[in-house]
């Protein structure tokens, strides 16, 4: 049901593909990668049969390289920047080559290297066990610091574990990658919610620095009549549900509201889980959607139907469950905004409604961190170091960038790890 969207490369194919790489100087793929993985370097190592060296050079830049190789929108990152586009050729399959190197590394029992054998006494707390925190934690632990990661969930990984479509990254593979970080000596305290000022104050006393990789809050609610019905499940709840095995099957007609990447993940998952019909409602038109073009095409290939210029206004249900979503037609007016067309109401038959209209900021906790500047629900940081306006706190990932890709969170976390280490190393000298 959830076989790989991009299946792994066979060994010989990986060598052929690696030989195709031109080995550009100051390669555009490397610049395009938020974590600046030295792409030609790792690719040429595959071609020369140095798989361990290849994986280690990748991990040096990006400790979550295995999951990034599967979930990154490479079409707009490394592969999008490949000079082969101007050479009338397909770009190098960088994502699949990276996965090849990382799969080989995991299969051979590879471990993350330490950058020093020295043990440092300083302690750092990372709040949230998603990609940003994991990257910060690994970087600091590799440099000998004592790191503890806190998360309210039972499993580490954040959205990498709970929120990425299974056909891109299976849950088990996310956990395998994190296990290497645990083996480095990072301590995980899971099922622990850091939600009160008192708890935070305790952490401030115990730890020298605190990294916030808390991500975003719950998904926005639809807020229309009937949308509190039990048959309404937001996209992240659906994805977490099927990834953890709580949801094994979807039946009937599914309606997804919103046209971002998460909406598409949810729609495709519903289709693969058995839905008879999956539709996406979007209040504007095709060229306005925030999903990547290749995600949109993927959804269409999976048979997802799109209703453009359509806004849900009410959910109608009976005792048997949801019956339909009442919609209204929209029109784009002169100033580019959209507005409902009077009297255009119609019904879309629906058994399950999935809102996917973005996540809200996790303000509750952030506001407890005294003196930390927050703008538009995002933590304000010094970009090169990730330090917040409260010098004890660093931050990265979705809570800083408002919700981007795993690789952006890893880049933020790594920069913060380096930033924290730099401060401690100065203090140490």
């Amino acid at each position: 049901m959830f076989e790989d969207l991009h299946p792994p490369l066979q060994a010989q194919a990986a060598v052929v593909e690696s030989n195709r790489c031109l080995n550009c100087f100051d390669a555009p793929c490397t610049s395009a990668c938020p974590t600046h993985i030295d792409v030609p370097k790792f690719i040429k190592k595959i071609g020369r049969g140095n798989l361990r060296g290849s994986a280690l050079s990748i991990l040096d830049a990006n400790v979550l390289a295995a999951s990034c190789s599967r979930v990154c929108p490479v079409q707009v990152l490394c592969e999008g920047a490949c000079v082969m586009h101007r050479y009338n050729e397909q770009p190098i399959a960088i994502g699949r080559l990276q996965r090849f190197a990382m799969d080989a590394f995991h299969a051979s029992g590879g471990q993350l290297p330490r950058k020093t054998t020295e043990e440092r006494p300083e302690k750092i707390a990372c709040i949230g066990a998603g990609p940003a925190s994991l990257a910060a934690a690994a970087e600091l632990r590799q440099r000998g610091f004592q790191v503890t990661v806190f998360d309210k969930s039972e499993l580490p990984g954040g959205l990498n574990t709970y929120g990425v479509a299974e056909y891109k990254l299976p849950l088990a593979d996310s956990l395998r990658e994190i296990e290497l970080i645990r083996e480095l000596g990072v301590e995980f305290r899971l099922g622990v919610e850091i939600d009160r000022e008192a708890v935070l104050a305790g952490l401030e006393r115990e730890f020298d620095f605190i990294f916030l990789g808390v991500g975003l809050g719950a998904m926005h609610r639809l807020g229309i009549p009937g949308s509190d019905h039990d048959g309404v499940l937001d996209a992240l709840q659906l994805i977490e549900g099927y990834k953890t095995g709580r949801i094994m099957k979807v039946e009937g007609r599914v309606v997804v509201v919103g046209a971002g990447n998460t909406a598409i993940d949810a729609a495709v998952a519903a289709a693969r889980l058995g839905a008879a019909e999956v539709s996406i409602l979007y209040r504007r038109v095709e060229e306005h959607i925030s999903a990547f073009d290749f995600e949109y095409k993927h959804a269409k290939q999976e048979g997802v139907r799109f209703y453009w210029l359509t806004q849900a206004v009410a959910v109608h249900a009976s005792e048997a469950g949801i019956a339909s979503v009442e919609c209204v037609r929209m029109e784009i007016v002169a100033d580019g905004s959209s507005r409902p067309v009077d009297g255009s109401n119609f019904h879309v038959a629906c058994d399950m409604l999935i809102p996917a209209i973005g996540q809200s900021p996790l303000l509750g906790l952030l506001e407890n961190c005294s003196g930390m500047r927050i703008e538009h629900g995002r933590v304000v940081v010094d970009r090169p170091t990730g330090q917040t306006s409260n010098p004890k706190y660093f931050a990265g990932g979705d809570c800083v960038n408002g919700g981007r890709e795993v690789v952006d969170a890893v880049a933020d976390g790594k920069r913060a790890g380096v930033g924290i280490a730099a401060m401690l190393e100065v203090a140490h000298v």
Partner: protein
Amino acid sequence: MSEQRVVPNLAVDFAGIKSPNPFWLASAPPTNCGEQVMRAFDAGWGGAVWKTIGAQVTNVSSRYSSIDWNGQRMMGLNNIELISDRPTEVNLREIAEVKKKYPKHAVIASLMVESTREAWHTIVQQAEDAGADGLELNFGCPHGMNERGMGSAVGQVPEYAQMITAWVKEKARTPVIVKLTPNISDIRVVARAAKRGGADALSAINTINSITGIDLDTFTPRPYVDGKSSHGGYCGPAVKPIALNMVQQVMSDAESVLPMSGIGGVAAWSDAAEFILLGSGTVQVCTAAMHYGYRIVEDMIDGLENWMSEKGFRSIEEFRGLSLANVTEWKHLNLNYKIVARIDEAKCIGCDLCYTACWDGAHQCIHLDRVSGPVDGHVELHEKPSAVEAASRSRITVTPIPKLDTVDSAAHGPYPTPLARIPRVDETECVGCNLCSLVCPVEQCITMVEVDTGSASESWEERTAEGLTEKSC
């Protein structure tokens, strides 16, 4: 208006051996038996030099190893196979059969026997009685046979080569070709000896002594024979430049020059054209046929015909040796000729391999300064490659989200590749070495353009005729 195209005739008369075209299979596994040679002729080959007959041998298993390069198989092939291990009578009978069925094709018997006059007289008589159109004396095989005083053991000693050639000539009624070994410091020494011995023609080169590689798990070189290996003979595309050089050396030497059958890395019509331009009358092919089969001759013929008619050559003789006059000694080259590299911005794909090649492998005169502003002059004035890379690595990049992040197209410039990635040549420093144009993956993107130095042509020999001066150094 109909196009007036010359219809070339590929037929050759090589030292008296007639062949419908200059493409011969070299003495090797593809000419091991009559059944093979007949299929080869059906495929279009003009001639075949039979796998060497004469001395009795037993072959080992395994026999070949190769060099792969960047995913390409068999850039070079190595073998430790000896001469034919079939009974001489069988080979002779099959030669006779082939000649009967293919009277217009060239069948040359490659011979190698122990170094006695009687042995050579006998094998020459047998081969000619079987109907061979000519004889090729294998003085080149660099493995196995040389340990028994044959093959390259003969080809490396001019006196032996001359003596045996003379013995053969006492008996032979057909043209005698001496096959030269490259495993010698100056191939002309043996070529001259062969000529003195009365040879009618030469063929070059035989395979080059080699160890192609070592298995990094067993520490044994390849090919592997029960825990050991032995040095072998190297051939294939990798050896072509060495072969061309040796053919040129022989063909430019008055004491050596004879009809030449060029051998070494011929895999396409264009390779053959190069050997012929250096004086070869025929070419011999082995590795390419072992790699892809006899069918490759179709395009060798077709391609050569098309090129010849494009150039207006009606026969092989019309262009044979034309390039010999263009090979000279270094001391005669014009020191005042200057070319510089030009990069076609519209073709550049931005790989910047020319930049790194020029900085690390040449003369530090290609720069990435189209955005910051061009600077001409010596190396200290320019940003170094490490600084260019460091600037890229320190840049913070995020995944572009459509509708959220607008692409800055102004910084892009007028070409498909962003201006910052299109290298620029500082022509005041460029020495015209060609390296950038060699590494550039795009056809005709970097061209070498002549610039007028305003000085008359002057060679090293002319410049130093009066003795070395400060100017000449």
